């Protein structure tokens, strides 16, 4: 079963994420993907995540396809104008990539090429619309395509965003534009997430809650202070701080979160950020 079919069923779906290397050496990332592939439905391939220049998502998506794994092509509006974005989408289709996650993207100043010119010719909402237009057989200005792509389009939402109401309004816009599934920013506050899910239940669109395994108390505090929309409650930070075996504590926290999330949404999206090898342990502990 593919991602689209799994989300349409009653299954609790798990996706994960890899970041291409800074360079052409893909051995390690393909090995990571293979390890993940056995346990998750599909794997996001990020697009110069956090504005740190890396090998493009599309080529790695293609390599994953070749290995029988299911990629999710992350495409952002940070670096490419509407011509390049449409071209890359058609390229993705030609390479057999079906799942697309349409993102606005982080600003370049946050990464390792702060001198770069920010593009943002489209935003996530208009990008989703463009994808649907291509699927319907025309480019975004109405020219007919010779051969049309078929995609399964996803978007992101930040349940911890400020203000949440604006996030929900934008989520609804993305659905109207054509988004069929959502992955969220990392969730640590189950109560707040439950409230959020109640408010978006009527949209009837699958939501995969984001999970970022904590590596240390320091990382938790850093995220609280620097990553918008993430709120890690103090008890979790303390658990990490007091842990003798940080990996064990991290896996437990992630698994506990997943167990609670099972009743609230259609799946989880695990973003290991370097701890790809720990994902199977998290899934084991969460009985998935």
């Amino acid at each position, binding site marked *: 079963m593919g991602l689209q079919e799994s989300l349409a069923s009653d299954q609790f779906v798990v996706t994960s994420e890899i970041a291409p290397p800074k360079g052409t050496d893909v051995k390690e990332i393909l090995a990571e993907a293979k390890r993940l592939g056995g346990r998750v439905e599909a794997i996001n391939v990020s697009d110069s995540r956090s504005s740190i220049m890396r090998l493009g998502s599309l080529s790695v998506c293609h390599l994953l396809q070749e290995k029988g794994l299911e990629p999710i092509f992350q495409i952002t*509006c940070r670096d490419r104008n*509407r011509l390049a974005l449409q071209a890359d989408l058609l390229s993705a289709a030609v390479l057999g990539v079906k799942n697309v996650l349409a993102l*606005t*993207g*982080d*600003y370049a*100043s*946050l990464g390792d090429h702060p001198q770069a010119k*920010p593009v*943002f*010719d*489209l*935003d*996530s*909402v*208009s990008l989703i*619309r463009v994808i649907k237009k291509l699927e319907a057989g025309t480019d*975004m200005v109405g020219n007919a395509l010779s051969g049309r792509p078929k995609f399964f389009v996803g978007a*992101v*939402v*930040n349940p911890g*965003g*400020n*203000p949440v*109401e*604006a*996030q929900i*309004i*934008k989520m*609804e*816009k993305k659905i*109207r*534009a054509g988004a069929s599934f959502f992955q969220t*920013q990392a969730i640590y506050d189950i109560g707040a997430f439950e409230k959020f899910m109640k408010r978006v239940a009527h949209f009837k669109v699958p939501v995969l809650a984001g999970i970022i395994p904590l590596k240390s108390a320091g990382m938790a505090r850093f995220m609280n202070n620097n990553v*918008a*929309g993430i*709120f890690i409650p103090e008890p979790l930070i303390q658990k990490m701080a007091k842990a003798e075996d940080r990996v064990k504590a991290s896996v437990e926290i992630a698994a506990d979160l997943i167990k609670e999330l099972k009743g609230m949404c259609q799946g989880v999206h695990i973003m290991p950020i370097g701890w790809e090898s720990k994902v199977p342990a998290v899934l084991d502990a969460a009985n998935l």
Partner: protein
Amino acid sequence: MFLAQQKPLEEILKSLVGEKNIFILGCNRCAEASGTGGDPQVLEMRKALERAGKEITGFSIVGFLCQKTLVQSSLQGKAKEVAAASSILAMSCGVGVQTVAAVSDKITHPAGNTIYLGKICGEWNVSMRCQECGNCVLDFTGGICPLTSCPKFLLNGTCGGTTREGKCEVDPEISCGWLLIYERLKKWGQLEKLQRIFEPEDHSKMLPLQGLPLSAR
């Protein structure tokens, strides 16, 4: 040289749906020079709106609509007429519209599209810059320009990067433009405007920095 165009009357009337009493503000500097906001244009607009069933509670032509103090004193001078209106129609460049919205805190509608400010800085308030996009959306964003208040030029709402303090992920010194827009729309009772899906900007309407606009040659 300054270039602006008046929005088609249908577009202006669409922005005024549900409203009856309007106050008109014109600009006696750039807009007047470009024939989009001076005396004759303001009077013409008044006639056109009255023909469409609106009541113009009053009007004023200010020296510079981009100058906060001037706008403030002008509005104070016509306080009764302004209070009797449900909104203000600002016939000026984008800076003027934003200034009026900020000073009056009244629903402010743009009457025009700004194409080229001619590098005139005039009295403009740096925090209310106009991107000269030629397709003014200030009517949908509570009088706050998303192109100049958001580093990512987002038209369809906030990204996920607004910090807990309401600051922009790009620069913690600046407020999230879309949070400001959200708060202003909420204040004006216009949150439903956030539901609109905007098409991407038409960059061919935005002129190159050097040289004359193609259409003027």
